[in-house]
């Protein structure tokens, strides 16, 4: 393989942990390694480091520090939010509203609850992957205890009208959770204006380390733990704190918040260049919303060809990308998000997701725009579905 280039365009799957973040974490492995729950002075640094990180996360989300609870990542935050509310409020009602395009960390959790007797409403989305606030309001029943709608979709980048949905939830006194894993560092997130009660984040999506995240829990909200044990995190989330990881989360979110608006502007420019260039390929279409989308997200369908093949050929050209989502290699499923947007199966298998990052340059985009058309043509020539007029042989 000609690996002259190495262009990473899969920042929705994960990001490079920024070297400054790693530097911030380093002292907490071997130097300030005390268990934050311990009394003695050498544990004080771990304790204050955690509280400092909590302040940074709270500041970035417009929350109070006592509302921030550290977890092992976005998946745990989503699981905890949903299962914790179902368990604490299940006596009041057993109906949960969510959408067809949530991340599997939400969808598979509510499916598990379904087996335990909860009823789930999966709201549809329009062709742009957008949930309508009206559909939320219509779905509310007397026994609805939770609404969970993601802030921004990980595949197509569509940004949901979460503030309006939050207002509806509040006016009906229903608890509202939002998975903001993809939004942090990309668009402003403020838990008060969003009217959310619970909000999930994951550090490795914005320059922090893998294996650490947080759940915002509004002050006064009743929620059961997901992990039982020691008295950490106000007795709500047990387990020795991942001190270096938490420090990394704090450093990363502070950094991401500081550079957000500038970065977003840059991303939008690069995104436009990339989208415009790719759409010159015949029979290609943009997935997701044209404007209400994450500044770094590009998701395109090329008719007649399949996703994995595109990725393999891009990889051979030094471009790291994904189809819809960073599936495990085990995956043969079409994207549930694209299906929900109304795409037929073969197209739901064939999208190309390119998610830009702070390191992405204009030269990268131009290189990609040089490679993709060739790759698409090559696969179209190979495909039994391609019509004659699009073949070169």
């Amino acid at each position, binding site marked *: 393989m000609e690996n002259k280039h190495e262009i990473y365009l899969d920042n929705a799957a994960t990001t490079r942990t920024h070297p400054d973040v790693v530097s911030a974490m380093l002292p907490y492995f071997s130097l300030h390694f005390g268990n934050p729950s311990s009394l003695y002075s050498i544990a004080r640094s771990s304790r204050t480091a955690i509280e400092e990180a909590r302040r940074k996360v709270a500041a970035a989300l417009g929350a109070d520090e006592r509302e921030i609870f550290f977890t092992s990542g976005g998946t745990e935050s989503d699981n905890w939010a949903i299962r914790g509310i179902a368990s604490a409020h299940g006596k009041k009602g057993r109906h949960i509203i969510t959408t067809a395009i949530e991340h599997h960390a939400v969808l598979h959790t509510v499916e598990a609850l379904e087996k335990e007797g909860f009823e789930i409403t999966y709201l549809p989305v329009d062709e742009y992957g957008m949930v309508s606030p009206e559909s939320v309001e219509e779905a509310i029943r007397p026994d609805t205890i939770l609404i969970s709608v993601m802030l921004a979709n990980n595949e197509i980048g569509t940004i949901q009208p979460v503030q309006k949905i939050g207002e509806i939830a509040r006016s009906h006194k229903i608890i509202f959770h939002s998975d903001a894993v993809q939004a942090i560092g990309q668009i402003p997130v403020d838990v008060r204006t969003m009217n959310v009660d619970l909000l999930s984040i994951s550090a490795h999506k914005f320059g922090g380390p893998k294996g650490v995240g947080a759940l915002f829990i509004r002050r006064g909200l009743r929620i059961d733990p997901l992990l039982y044990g020691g008295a950490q995190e106000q007795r709500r989330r047990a387990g020795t704190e991942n001190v270096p990881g938490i420090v990394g989360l704090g450093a990363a979110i502070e950094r991401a918040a500081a550079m957000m608006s500038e970065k977003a502007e840059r991303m939008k420019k690069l995104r436009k260049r990339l989208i415009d260039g790719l759409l010159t390929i015949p029979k290609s279409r943009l997935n997701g919303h044209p404007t209400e989308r994450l500044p770094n997200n590009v998701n395109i369908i090329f008719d007649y060809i399949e996703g994995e093949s595109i990725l393999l050929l891009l990889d051979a050209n030094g471009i790291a990308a994904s189809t819809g989502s960073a599936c495990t290699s085990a995956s*043969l499923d079409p*994207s549930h998000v694209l299906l929900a947007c109304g795409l037929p199966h073969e197209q739901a298998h064939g999208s190309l997701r390119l998610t830009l990052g702070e390191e992405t340059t204009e030269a990268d985009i131009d290189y990609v725009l040089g490679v993709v058309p060739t790759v698409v043509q090559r696969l179209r020539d190979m495909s039994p579905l391609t019509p004659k007029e699009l073949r070169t042989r």
Partner: protein
Amino acid sequence: MYSETVMDHFNNPRNQREIPDADGIGEVGNQKCGDIMRIFLKIHDNVIEDASFQTFGCGAAVASSSMATEMIKGKTLEEAWEISNKAVAEALEGLPPQKLHCSVLAEEAIHAAINNYLEKMGLEPWEEGEGSCAGCSGCGTD
């Protein structure tokens, strides 16, 4: 995740073209699984003189098609019929478990193409084995 042979057949597919005057054409697969395979055969005196494919699908599907067409060229119809998905997968130096169905598809496509030829000739089609899309399974996302 793929062997070097798979990647070689994916990057340099053999026999990837249409045969306009094919004697037998077989198409199998299903868009839910994301794989469609079409095999073209040129047959003379019960021997496969030429074979080619078109495939919509993942790397393993392309490589399986490529390898399968290589394996059947010069074989009698009976010999070609006996080429199992296992033989294709082995010739590719293995496929990931969840991709084994791609080699099954290749076997099925060969069978379909041979039967298409037999039918055109007014002969009884041979009996098809079990096909499957059993590899289809869930997805982990980021």
